[in-house]
């Protein structure tokens, strides 16, 4: 039998450091209208944003916790103990040298902007509530691509921003989207003009540095007709003694024939509640693809979705979740078909180790009178230890005669026999385990851009180390 001992954290330790807090702006703990006004004042919000926030606060307060279907662990979040806004009061810097030294050290330790020099078209780095560094390569900027923080986006480009903001994910979509709408700060605003194909990915990096803090970034990406964009985000936080909340809202709009690929590698420390709402709107012949990899956090609840609004639109979710000891990765996908000949594809693979729990929740909706819509869902789970757990809860609605929907799920095991077989060929138990797990996720890891797939494979290997023996 595979033994169980799951002290991981070799990779997490990379992010597990914190600098003393030197915030000039702090909204204090707890959430009231006063908190909203404080945030709006500091950020010099336009009136419509202040109104939007206040209304969202009411929605948030009126909505119950979704514990009737979701994990009871949500009850561990004490909203009154959280600090909703923290910033150093600095404007995002356009050159690396301008960034304050302690913040710079943080990101340098994490390998940013090293990566930017290598292959990125632009980077934004968020430290607690605000972006501290934002840079877009000149060539990309000259094509008319806008890549700024959401605060700048709503002030500098209100004509595009207001048209789509809160339209893909309404405030009342769920309790946490309402919370984000009330206190959002940071995140990216991106606009890609018609026909522009951004060759290299844009990247955002999120870092929580303060304890008892909630990070609520808001990202809005609009890719105009025939344009293409790849966006990547990464997240880390040091390990504090108390739980931290990350609750983002990400809205994507792909206009006719546009393509958006959104990649997330989430590696929060394992006391972060990661409750994120992500949805894309795909117009005619457009494609929205979410590639979502969840390795960190205590509880992640995230079901990236695509609303296929135009004919022949395509939606895809590729999801990898690794649930280690004490972690619950509650992930999945939502596919809403709202036009003829739309196709969606969901591939989800999860790995549960030790006492980890991986849950897949899916929603596929094909309303009536649509023709030739197709959905294919595959979700596979791998269990490593006797006390790990996996659940699958899809919900599929199909009406009418012109559509085909297929869902398949399986659960398998790295069995003791399999490990023994590999050991007999001379591999150590750890090597054997790592080979098995990589075999399980291999076909998905290949979907990631080269730089990330190498990184991901290494992450998984490190996570697996110590899970046997």
């Amino acid at each position, binding site marked *: 039998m595979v033994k169980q001992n799951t002290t991981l954290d070799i990779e997490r330790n990379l992010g597990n450091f914190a600098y003393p807090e030197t915030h000039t702006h702090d909204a204090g703990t707890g959430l009231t209208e006063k908190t909203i006004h404080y945030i709006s004042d500091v950020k010099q919000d336009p009136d419509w944003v202040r109104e939007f926030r206040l209304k969202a606060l009411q929605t948030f307060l009126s909505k119950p916790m979704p514990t009737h279907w979701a994990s009871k662990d949500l009850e561990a979040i004490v909203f009154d103990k959280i600090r909703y806004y923290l910033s150093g009061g600095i404007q995002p810097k356009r050159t690396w040298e301008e960034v304050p030294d302690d913040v710079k050290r943080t990101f340098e330790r994490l390998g940013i902007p090293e990566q930017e020099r290598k292959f990125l078209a632009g980077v934004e780095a968020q430290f607690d509530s605000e972006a501290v560094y934002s840079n877009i390569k000149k060539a990309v900027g000259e094509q008319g691509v806008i890549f700024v923080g959401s605060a700048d986006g709503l002030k500098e480009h209100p004509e595009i921003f207001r048209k789509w903001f809160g339209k893909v994910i309404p405030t009342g979509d769920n309790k946490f989207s309402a919370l984000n709408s009330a206190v959002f700060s940071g995140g990216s605003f991106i606009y890609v003009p018609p026909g522009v194909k951004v060759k290299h990915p844009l990247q955002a990096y999120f870092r929580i540095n303060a304890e008892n803090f909630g990070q609520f970034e808001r990202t809005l990406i609009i890719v105009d007709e025939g344009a293409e964009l790849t966006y990547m985000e990464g997240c880390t936080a040091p390990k504090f003694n108390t739980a931290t909340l990350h609750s983002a809202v990400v809205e994507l709009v792909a206009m006719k024939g546009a393509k958006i690929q959104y990649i997330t590698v989430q590696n929060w420390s394992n006391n972060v509640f990661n409750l994120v709402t992500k949805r894309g709107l795909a117009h005619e012949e457009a494609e929205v693809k979410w590639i979502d990899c969840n390795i960190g956090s205590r509880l992640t609840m995230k079901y990236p979705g695509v609303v296929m609004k135009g004919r022949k639109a395509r939606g895809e979710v590729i999801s990898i979740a690794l649930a280690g000891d004490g972690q619950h990765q509650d992930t999945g996908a939502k596919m809403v078909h709202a036009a003829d000949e739309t196709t969606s594809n969901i591939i989800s693979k999860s790995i549960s180790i030790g006492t980890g729990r991986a849950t897949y929740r899916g929603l596929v909706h094909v309303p009536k009178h649509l023709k030739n819509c197709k959905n294919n869902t595959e979700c596979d789970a791998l269990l490593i230890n006797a006390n790990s757990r996996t659940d699958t809860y899809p919900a599929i609605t199909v009406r009418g005669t012109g559509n085909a929907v297929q869902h398949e799920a399986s659960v398998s095991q790295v069995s003791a026999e399999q490990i023994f077989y*590999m050991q*007999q060929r001379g*591999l150590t138990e750890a090597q054997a385990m790592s080979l098995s797990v990589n075999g399980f996720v*291999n076909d998905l890891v290949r979907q990631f851009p080269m730089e990330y797939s190498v990184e991901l494979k290494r992450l998984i290997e490190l996570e697996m180390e110590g899970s046997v023996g």
Partner: protein
Amino acid sequence: MDQLVIKDLHVSIDEQEIIRGLSLTIPKGEVHAIMGPNGSGKSTLAKVLAGHPDYTVTSGTVLMNGENVLDFEPDERARKGLFLAFQYPSEIPGVTIANFLRAAVQARMPEGEELEATDYYAELYKKMDLLGMDRSFTSRSVNEGFSGGEKKRNEILQMAMLTPEFAVLDETDSGLDIDALKVVAQGVNSLRGPKLGVLLITHYQRLLNYIVPDHVHVMVRGRIELSGGKELALQLEEKGYDWVRDDITEPALA
């Protein structure tokens, strides 16, 4: 020195003794066959030699080139030159044969030394040609969706690539039709030589028509009861295992 010596081996699972004082010596260059009825402990012997964790060795030694292999982990035994061809090889989804074997070959190289990919593939293809295997085989996941014949051929391919000093072939003929049996036997025969000792475990005599052993041992209730030359196998085929049992002086259990 150049031999595998099993001395007075006792093995239990869940407090039940399955191997009860087995002794056997296999010098390099020889092929020994163990035959026996179902439940005689043949397959247990194979797994114990390889270090399967389900079994407990209560006493005895297994010396390979003078070292007691029972002191080592399964992977250490393998790297020291002991190979087991499994009766039921495990499936390893998503791991290709090429990558799997490469990891296994790499594990045998001294620390810091990297396997040269071109050399490796040249060697792999050579061995595959020998076994009449299609090149596309290497990109399939290990044993996943393989037919019985393919699984066994894959075992022999691994044996060819890992160049063991002693190989234990556990019921290698099970699940094989006559054509597949010939191919597998041919593969094993091509690996025979002064540097390899082979222990063939089989229930049926037919495998021994194709891999002709130097010695045949009959195992009954956890111990070798009768040894002889290859003609012993034919005698068994004719008279059945009851003949050996009747021959045993010890009273039958229950």
